[in-house]
């Protein structure tokens, strides 16, 4: 137990070393709590109240109300879960594929290498967002899991190139040579010798893949191409656009709410990478 607390304290100290990164990290935790615990505390307001359309900010409605008089705050609280889930899943899927493809490509080489890199090249050449629009029509992303999966399998190529390059340079290092001389096996070499050296890079890449997934999914929902129902920050944005709330001066809090939620979540992810970099890379730490 004591060891656990000590470890936790060390981790926190490392995280808080970079002030901006720590603030970003706290905000990420805040958004996770808001989206996954919040819905149990704040009930979703579904009742239409015609006398309260675009009500100003008040104690009862801290973020005002929307085009049918529903409480905006409750929709912000309930609208994060899908966005965060898709972002995390898509990021994780693309990072895993990238790691497998990149390291296999670098370690096996030859035909496999040129095959994988050729595939990556072709995927990179197809315009991503337009392709997503076509796929959205094709697959009807009414399920967040399908959406996350598609986003994941489209965004691994550039990361896998970078990982291939890193593995190529790492495998020439002495400690990998030593492991190979000891005949420790390819699995051991990849997981135990090479991956730990790329941990910070992978963590940062995962987060950037998440921000890209947020961009793409909210963009698709905003264009009305993903028939996601229920509350979702992207759906809020799309409704604000199609219901004309954008052009209604009193509706400012209603529009600002999803915009700020998405923008702040993106920002906190990007800022959190700074702390992660320092935590995983002892060379960047100073005076800890």
């Amino acid at each position: 137990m004591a060891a656990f607390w000590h470890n936790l304290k060390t981790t926190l100290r490392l995280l808080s070393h970079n002030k901006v990164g720590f603030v970003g990290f706290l905000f990420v935790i805040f958004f996770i709590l808001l989206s996954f615990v919040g819905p149990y505390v704040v009930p979703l307001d579904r009742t239409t109240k015609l006398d309260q359309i675009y009500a100003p900010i008040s104690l009862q409605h801290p973020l005002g109300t929307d085009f049918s008089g529903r409480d905006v705050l409750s929709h912000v609280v309930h609208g994060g879960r899908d966005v965060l889930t898709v972002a995390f899943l898509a990021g994780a899927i693309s990072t895993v594929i990238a790691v497998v493809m990149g390291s296999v490509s670098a370690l096996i080489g030859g035909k496999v290498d040129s095959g994988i890199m050729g595939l990556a090249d072709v995927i990179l050449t197809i315009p991503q967002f337009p392709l997503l629009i076509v796929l959205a029509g094709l697959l009807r992303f009414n399920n967040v899991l399908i959406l996350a999966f598609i986003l994941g399998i489209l965004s691994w190529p550039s990361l896998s190139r970078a990982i291939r390059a890193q593995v190529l340079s790492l495998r020439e290092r002495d400690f990998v040579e030593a492991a190979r001389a000891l005949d420790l096996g390819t699995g051991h070499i990849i997981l135990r010798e090479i991956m730990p050296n790329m941990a910070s890079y992978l963590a940062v890449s995962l987060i950037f893949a998440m921000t890209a997934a947020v961009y793409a999914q909210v963009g698709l929902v905003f264009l009305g191409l993903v028939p996601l129902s229920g509350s979702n920050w992207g759906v809020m944005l799309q409704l604000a656009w199609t219901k004309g709330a954008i052009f209604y001066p009193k509706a400012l809090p209603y529009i600002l709410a999803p915009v700020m939620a998405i923008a702040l979540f993106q920002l906190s992810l990007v800022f959190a990478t700074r702390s992660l970099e320092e935590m995983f890379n002892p060379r960047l730490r100073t005076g800890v």
Partner: protein
Amino acid sequence: MASTITEARALAPAGVSIGSLLRKAARNYVLRRLAVAFIKVLIVVTLTFFLIRLMPTNPVEVYINELITQYGMSADEARNQAAALLAIDLDAPLSQQYFQYMVGLVQGNLGTSFRSKGTPVGAMIAQFLPWTLFSVGISLLISFALGMLLGMWSAYRRESVGDHVITTFSSIFSSIPNYLVGIMLVVLLGVQWKLLPITQMRGSMSPGMTPGFTLEFIKDIFFHAALPISTYVLTTIGSWTLAMKSSTIATLGEDYVTVAKARGLSEGRIITGYVGRNASLPLFTSLAISIGFIVGGSTLIEFIFVYQGVGQLLLNSITSRDYPVMQGIFLIITFTVILANLLAEFLYSRLDPRVRVAGGK
């Protein structure tokens, strides 16, 4: 008999020279690159051709639905009108349609639109593409040039207040999705503060304006492109600034800069000739790559500002399932991406003598 032997002798040297020519061509770096690029275009065209036709609801169904819901026609009436208007043979086997399309493509024919009947896709793209190239191209130049200046400035004034302000703004604006910035520009400048006539600024030029090299026309197109350009610049300038800053800081530590200082060269000459030149090298490669995203990355922004560019055309063609138009836009985008990547590669070996690629010798 004798004649065949002489023929064979006469052919032999020619055969060798063709073989060696082919071998030379295979070894030639530029030619190899071009061949790979050509194969890539072919794969992407084929993939998108079948993907697009796999989409549920075909153009005829979409059109029938539109007639029924918008004009209150009966189902039969709508079907007849759709059949008359859209003379599309969607029943032909896919392989045959694909073959026809590829034959047309080789002849430089992108097909004709289903919806705007008889309009060649090439003409439609030629009408919409210039606006996208104009708005995104101008913003790319502005944010590249400004980003380089700001990046160098903050690298020289490291840890000053100005540097902190620039760096913070850069990282904030480069992480917020560009369409959110676009929406906020509409909401704040157009609706809340009423600084801009947002509805008049829609479209790519005012109705009744005749294109030409007149001050009036130029003023008008900038008036309509002002918001898209501001959005692109705001959201991309940050990454140029940050990239230039780190590149400049890395260059400042190089030995040749120290030597140049020791030789007593003027500060201005060091900045432009030694630091700036070398620090901006990697940025030029990224600039070439970003040119490829000019066409593909504009859909959302053009949707928000109702700007008549190729992104808007793509969106319209997707909702009406206008296959040839979609296909044509995909082809154009793929083409620009591949061209831009080739440009980036050649530019890099041209600008930096240290990176003369192996095959370039």
